[in-house]
């Protein structure tokens, strides 16, 4: 293990906590990194400095005290009401069943909770923070479709022509505002990364009307939205609308 690798591991080391961790929670090769401290004086000096910095930061955080009235404000604004007794809960459950039986149709028709505007507002943040459930190599879109089929995603997506030659595609199936969304991440080489969000048309409030895309600029991110068959699509890319048009 060289010094750079040891520093990477030791940067994330929390003495007392990480020594006890196992499985996914543990730091890989921690034992070897710690052993390096005994044979590498430069590393040992670096680690001592870092440990001192860590202790200072922890203490600095401890000094940040919440305002004296914050706890009361939280309790006052949260308005927790006592949970009903078992007998009351049974009566309430029975009454709820009767109501459900009487008003079955409107109860069963689910109202969409996600609007295009709400999704577009979250897209710049989601682009930066979403993770990849599966990543494929160029030309392996079928593996993406297969994975999406197995995981309830939008496997029958239609891609704009500008995305079909990407250098790699990754995907994720997630939930945004209680709505299932498939996210495809396209690596376009020098052109950067584009993200395609796919939602069932019926899950959106006022989905995009048709194949002609509508364009919007959200800060430094350009977004195009359209619908095709049962799906609505939201394509986003850092930059301006002119650059995004080249992908469509």
């Amino acid at each position, binding site marked *: 293990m060289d010094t750079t690798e040891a520093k990477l591991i030791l940067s994330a080391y929390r003495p007392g906590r990480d020594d006890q961790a196992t499985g996914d*929670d543990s730091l890989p090769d921690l034992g070897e990194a710690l052993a390096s401290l005994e044979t590498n004086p430069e590393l040992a000096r670096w680690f001592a400095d870092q440990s001192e*910095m860590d202790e*200072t930061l922890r203490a600095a955080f401890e000094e940040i005290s919440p305002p004296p009235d914050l*706890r009361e404000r939280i309790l006052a*604004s949260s308005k927790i*009401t006592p949970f009903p007794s078992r007998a009351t809960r049974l009566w309430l459950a029975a009454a709820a069943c009767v109501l459900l039986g009487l008003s079955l149709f409107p109860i069963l028709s689910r109202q969409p909770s996600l609007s295009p505007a709400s999704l577009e507002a979250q897209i710049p943040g989601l682009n930066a923070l979403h*993770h990849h459930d599966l990543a494929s190599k160029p030309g392996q879109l079928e593996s993406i479709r297969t994975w999406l089929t197995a995981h309830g995603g939008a496997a029958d997506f239609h891609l704009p022509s500008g995305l079909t030659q990407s250098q790699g595609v990754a995907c994720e199936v997630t939930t945004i505002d209680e709505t299932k969304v498939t996210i495809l991440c396209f690596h376009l080489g020098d052109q950067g990364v584009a993200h395609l969000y796919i939602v069932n048309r019926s899950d959106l409030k006022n989905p995009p009307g048709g194949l002609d895309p509508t364009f919007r600029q959200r800060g430094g991110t350009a977004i195009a939205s359209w619908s095709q068959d049962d799906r609505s699509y939201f394509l986003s890319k850092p930059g301006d609308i002119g650059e995004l048009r080249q992908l469509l």
Partner: protein
Amino acid sequence: MEPHEFEHLVEAHYGDLYRFAVSLTRNPDEACDLTQQVFVTFARKGDKIRDRSKCRSWLFTSLYRDFLRQKERSKRVTSMDEDGLELCAGFNPSEAAPTVAHHEAREALFSLDEAHRSILSLFYLDDCSYKEIAARLNVPMGTVMSRISRAKAALRARLQVGPQESPEGINSNR
């Protein structure tokens, strides 16, 4: 959830949640609002969390997501330019006298960009595993260690360009 159970939950977590919110917003008023809001949301939805050991993780994750939504709505730009920072004095230091080194350490941490601040805050502040850090920040597990390393390198660089006359602590060996 019973009121006393909720009260216990608030007591156990609001302090650390507030500290995390401060590191994200760098503004005590916004941090109070975020902290308060996450508990209001929990009061509405918390009964769906069957495993009570997951409550803390849910609170931190929700607060972080609320912060990101708020940031997007207000279209604030996180800048590395220190002149543009909205650092606010008066984080109500505890009754023990704050040291100069602690003050400089906080300023250095709050001057980092949001990705570094958020991961270091969870690393220092909260007793959570790397898997939990990854889940709360919605980053891959493999990214956590490298991001912590880069964040600490950025922090060290900030502290090294701080005042040379700092009497104790971090800068004493330089």
